[in-house]
């Protein structure tokens, strides 16, 4: 039995826990406002909001309901476009209406939900954040210019939203219907018994699993490890940073610990998927999904991370991430084992970090090649360096030889050019839908240059 609130209605359901949330919404609850364009998280037509009580405060995030299991809704407030409707349209809708920013209308409910999610953000409203909020929403009628105008007006209007009591303000200003005010209390009364002992297919965010085998999840028990998460997903103890495997990309973007260490990372992480996916995709899932192109794997590789793995009897072991992936989609994880945490050490010398990613489309796309670098240096001499690259081999690639070459070298053009030859020789990518061998090799070199151009403004 799963209990949650759908719009203004309490739901108690025995439907299959692995059913995609969108199917429950559309076909079991007959709320047809939420649309389906791809069932793969790639179009945003199915966007809904998930509200969760954390420390007594409700926090709403946009998610793609097509790749979210019904079970995730347990204990939450799920908001669909039908839940915004009173007789008249609300403020987000009004702005889109004013600018004629809907053509065939099929993408429109998704945009409305993403922007409503944006309006619920506790950050100060900002136009570029608002654009990012809809980067996961595809419109094929491509009314983007008029949508932009609407978004601009919305973000301007939201600038007067106070930091506290934002829900009350949003209700007063017709962004939300009134029932939102009582939701936190109503969530407290929901009963869900989900324990970490249960068996089933392990689901982190589900963003990979639902694309691969939605029917299998529908017909089987699933183990939503989200519920065994501690609240603090990112912690620092002395020099050691620990990330829970359940950390989402959004968690990293919002983390002060991380932004203090790597001020540019939050912006670079916007190159990963879309806001909806970043809100759910976990780093544990990214590592175990074992795609050679996984962005988080590439970033964590360059941080020379360790994985803390636990088995069902709670016995822990530690393995370096660079040793974890053993071949194409194979890795060192035994039956019953879960990744618990990912850790890395803050270098005790000067260090710089960079992440580069090139894909066909800059946003919401899988990389043709991606690469990360952590350079630890003193007086312009490289003391240690970790370089990773994706899309180049059967596994996320850690560049050992290039590292060996660069250690104790001065940071200058000559050394970078030499290192670029080594890094290209260290891998032989295969041609596929994301690029030919020649392209990927050239791109690797270019991204390697880009690291030094970005970090040290070196002229190549």
């Amino acid at each position, binding site marked *: 039995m799963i209990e949650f609130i759908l719009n203004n209605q309490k739901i108690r359901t025995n439907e299959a826990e692995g059913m995609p949330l969108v199917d429950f919404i*559309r076909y079991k609850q*007959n*709320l*047809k*406002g939420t*649309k389906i*364009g*791809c*069932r*793969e998280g*790639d179009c945003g*037509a199915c966007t809904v909001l998930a509200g969760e009580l954390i420390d007594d405060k409700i926090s709403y995030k946009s998610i793609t309901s097509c790749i979210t299991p019904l079970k995730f809704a347990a204990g939450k407030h799920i908001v669909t*476009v*039908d839940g*915004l*409707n009173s007789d008249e*349209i609300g403020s987000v*809708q009004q702005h*889109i209406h004013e600018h*004629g*920013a*809907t*053509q*065939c*209308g*099929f993408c429109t*409910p998704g945009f*409305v939900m993403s922007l409503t999610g944006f309006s619920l953000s506790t950050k100060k409203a900002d136009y570029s954040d608002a654009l990012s909020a*809809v*980067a996961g*929403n*595809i419109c*094929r*009628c*491509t*009314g*983007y*210019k*008029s*949508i932009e105008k609407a978004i601009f007006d919305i973000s301007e209007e939201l600038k007067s939203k106070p930091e506290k009591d934002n829900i009350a303000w949003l209700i007063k200003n017709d962004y939300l219907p009134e029932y939102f005010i009582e939701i936190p209390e109503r969530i407290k009364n929901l009963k869900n018994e989900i324990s970490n002992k249960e068996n089933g297919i392990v689901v982190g965010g589900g963003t990979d699993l639902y*694309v691969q085998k939605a*029917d299998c999840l*529908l017909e089987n028990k699933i183990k939503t490890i989200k519920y065994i998460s501690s609240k603090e997903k990112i912690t620092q103890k002395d020099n050691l940073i620990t990330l829970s495997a359940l950390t989402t990309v959004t968690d990293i973007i919002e983390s002060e610990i991380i932004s203090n260490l790597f001020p540019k990372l939050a912006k670079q992480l916007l190159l990963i998927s879309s806001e909806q996916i970043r809100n759910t995709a976990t780093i544990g899932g990214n590592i175990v999904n074992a795609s050679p192109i996984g962005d988080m794997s590439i970033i964590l590789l360059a941080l020379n991370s360790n994985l803390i793995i636990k088995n069902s009897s709670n016995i822990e072991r530690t393995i370096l991430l660079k040793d974890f992936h053993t071949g194409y989609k194979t890795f060192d994880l035994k039956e019953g084992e879960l990744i618990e945490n990912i850790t890395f050490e803050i270098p005790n010398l000067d260090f710089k970090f960079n992440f580069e990613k*090139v894909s*066909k*489309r*800059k*946003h*919401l796309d*899988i990389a043709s090649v991606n690469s990360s670098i952590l350079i630890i240096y003193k007086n312009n001499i490289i003391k240690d360096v970790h370089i990773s690259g994706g899309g180049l081999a059967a596994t996320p690639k850690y560049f050992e030889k290039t590292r060996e070459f660069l250690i104790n070298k001065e940071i200058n053009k000559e050394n970078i050019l030499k290192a670029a030859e080594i890094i290209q020789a260290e891998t032989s990518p295969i041609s596929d*839908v*994301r*690029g030919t061998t*020649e*392209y990927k090799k*050239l*791109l690797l070199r*270019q991204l390697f240059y880009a690291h030094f*151009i970005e970090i040290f403004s070196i*002229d190549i």
Partner: protein
Amino acid sequence: MKNRDSKNHLQGKSIYIDDIPEISGTLYGLVYDSPIAHAKIINIDYSKAEELDDIVRILTYKDVPGENQIGAIIQDEPLFAEGEVHFIGQPIAFIVAKSELAARKAKKLIEANFEEKTIVTDPREAHKNKSYIAPPRTFKIGETKNIWETCEHIISGRVKSGGQEHLYLETQGAYAVPAEDGNIKLYSSTQGPTAVQKIAASVLNVKMNKIEVDVTRLGGAFGGKEDQATPWAIMVSLAAQILNSPVKFALNRHDDMRMTGKRHPYDSDFKMGLSKDLKILAYEADYYQNAGASADLSPAITERTLFHSTNSYFVPNTRTTVYSCKTNLPPNTAFRGFGAPQGMFLIEAAIHKAAEEIGVRVEEIQKQNLITINDEFPYGQLAEEDGAVKSWETAEKDFKLKELFSEVESYNSENKYLKKGVAVTPVTFGISFTNTAMNHARALVHIYQDGSIGISTGAIEMGQSVNTKIMQVAAHFLSVSTSRIKIETTNTTRVANTSPTAASSGADLNGQATQVACIALYKRLTGFAAKHFNVEVEKISIKDEFIYIEDKKTDWNWETLVEQTFLARIALTENGHYTTPKITFDKTKEKGHPFAYHVFGSAITTCTVDCIRGTYEIDSVKVVHDFGVSMNKLIDNGQIEGAVVQGIGWVTMEEIAYDEKGRLLSNALSTYKIPDILFAPKSIDIIHLKTDGHKFAIMKSKAVGEPPFNYGIGAYFAIQNAIKAYNSNFKSDYNSPATPERVLMGLYQK
């Protein structure tokens, strides 16, 4: 006026196929399609699939009571494969089940044996084998044979343009509900309800009047639902007929992408001759169109390529030939522009190459050769307007083209890793179905006795706001508020024998049919009022819902007038019929006057290329466009913006990839990328060219759907120019799309 559907769209209340409330007992269909691109079917064993719980029936060609044939122009496309398969994704059987999940499981249990045959995916290879969809066609004007020796410059080359996935956000789908007497009510996500009705009748072996096709709206179509909405609609109808149950099929995105055709990829050769003063004297082109495994709309599309082979230019001697080549791919089909973009891309590439080889600015050649009044198009029609020249000059002046060039030059000299490029793209597009017989429409207008109005036409609403325009037309010609007007679903029982909503002609044809009906009703109503007030009819008018005698307002308002007219037993219904005047085309001579009018425009595209990473952004697209006199600027500008971004997608990131087995690799949204909001040009500026409009355009407001797609081509050339600014060794191969891969390879070409 805003899109009449806007508020419903925003609240999620608009109804698309999959939102129609299901009747209990509804069954669900799923296609079993060929996993092999070309093969003889040895045998297919459905027994395990049939035994599965909840499987009701698996239909194959054997179950078709009528013709197993869905080809609209040429009858070369079976509904279900019989004996042979010709592309991956070709329907073989239709699984009908009590649930979608059961159907998916059953599909996996079907066991088939094929004898594979050699496959062809390259149109040039098909050409070598003379394997065509239809005989090649050639358009000619002047004589190219002996002209070459008089040319100062002769440029030739080979150019490829890629396919394009429609990616309408709503996938294909249909829902058939059986009614009494073997009738079927068929909801289809189609641009062509009559085609669906006609083919359904022929497959089901019933008369057309047994099939009622109803369409509320489509969640995008772009040509992809003109012909290719048909198979699914027929399959659910067939299943409904045989099983006497409602049957629905809404395609999953992968199935949709794999089974449906796309924009035709072209591989073409050209030869262009120019005089010393850069006049284009001669142009020859051979287009090898990749048509896929059957005709679909390819014959009509080849034609439009020829119609637009010289785009906005006047070329006195041209010879263009198109070969519609048969390959083992899904039948390629209509897509916004309908073959014209491919033709325009080729001549633009030819001009760019010419400029490069001669060593002049591209714009010098472009501007020299723009078509103007009384110049003859290769198909015999004369240009009646000077929109090509005027829009160019307006763009040059109002968008300060010269300054833009010098700004870009100084930007490029100041920036090492970022380079900008500019390109100007003129566009001339003919409006009308090139098949003259299709240029007609009807509108059924009811005025109800309470004064409210219901209008049915043959137009399909798919986001282009044709229904909003029709509402505006009726409100204007009846002089009533739009709030009185309801636009009904498009339904073959109310408006029959319709042409598909395509060729940008939806508003022109259906709007003018509505106009005809409303004018007739207006006459009837004012005639009755004249009798009642005992004045001459010329003195009566309806203004803002009141009846006037000359300038004097009477105490009769619209509702009184309607009620009294009704009581006088006068018909308040009218069926308006419209045919486009003047158009003709003689296919034996390939000459005539095929278009009601032309739409003109010019666009300036600027982009920035990141020369380290090979990525790019489109900075701006500045458009001067000939709308005639736009009847709805908000909607028309939206059409331009949408078309431009779609056109840019076609020449940049949208890349269709098949492997050597004919398997679609770009088969999902994760591998086929279309522009998102962050890729859209930073700005799109639109200037409405000052004109008086055209009398054959609805309320002088010209068709706007397809022409602006072609402005998108400019992004390709802007990017090539930016690459050149970084790498002077770069020689473009003029193959589109300019993916980040091609751009990076170009930046570092030696």
